[in-house]
């Protein structure tokens, strides 16, 4: 589970290049089903192993938006204040299978002294067959620490 930071991050204390959050989540079939029901995305690719195999996957995959939600939660848990969230832009680059451990990470990319906005590089990693796969990469988030 992600740790909610005890204190809100302070603009002046952040350094470009600093990794500021890391949150791991094991992707479970029942959670993906719950997400399908909550979001309304009932694509069988996320629920039916036979269907997933028929289109070339070894089994069902998680919704990209489920992975994005985990990343957004990690970002929100770091910044603490939900009103500080300005934007998040993600690229989906790899699928996520059941029981894999998805790790959301964020690093300070730049700071705007005038607006007190901070841009982060954000991404997600999975270790699969001894290699690091990034289901979300080349992605950005902006928070306001005014």
């Amino acid at each position, binding site marked *: *589970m992600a740790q*909610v930071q005890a204190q809100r991050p302070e603009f002046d204390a952040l350094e470009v290049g600093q990794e500021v959050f890391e949150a791991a*989540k094991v992707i479970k079939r029942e*959670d993906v089903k*719950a*997400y399908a*029901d*909550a*979001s*309304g*995305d009932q694509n069988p690719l996320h629920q039916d192993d036979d269907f997933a195999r028929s289109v070339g996957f070894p089994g069902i995959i998680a919704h*990209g*938006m*489920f992975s*994005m*939600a*985990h990343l*957004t*939660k990690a970002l*929100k*848990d770091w910044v603490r204040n*939900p*009103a500080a*969230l*300005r*934007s*998040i*832009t*993600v*690229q*989906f680059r790899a699928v996520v299978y059941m029981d894999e451990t998805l790790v959301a990470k964020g690093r300070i990319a730049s700071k705007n002294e005038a607006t007190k906005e901070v841009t982060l590089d954000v991404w997600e990693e999975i270790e699969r067959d001894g290699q690091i796969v990034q289901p979300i990469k080349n992605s950005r988030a902006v928070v306001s620490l005014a």
Partner: protein
Amino acid sequence: MPLNQTLKGKTYQELTFEVERDRATQFSLAVGEDDPRFLEAGAAQAEGFPEQLAFPTFPTVLGILVSAQAVTDQELGLDYSRVVHGEQEYEWKRPIVVGDVLKATPRIGDIYSKGPNEFLVIEAEMTDADGEVVCISRGTLLSRGTAEGA
């Protein structure tokens, strides 16, 4: 077959969507949110928010309705079996709360090709009852192997 490029800028029917408490709570629980501000009104109000907060990616629920109109548009010619979700952006102006009545007019922001694939950008600006923009969603669908000459 390539997508119909002349539909860039096309707008679809306006949608209205009320953020209901049960749905917002269901969504929060489904994404593993245990922050009480996203699960009950009291914790959010204690910090000055008017109501229970919806999880930041809750607009996905509306987004599925937003993209449905374009995806099923016969003029556009999208083969959904070739589609994967390539990119997603949310820009937030304020937190979404329970009781918000959001309106959105889906629009085709762009259609372009890169190599063998085509990209369809569907945008929606979500406004509240006062007409203020709450959230902007930009989703990019990737249509595999449908570009001209692919």
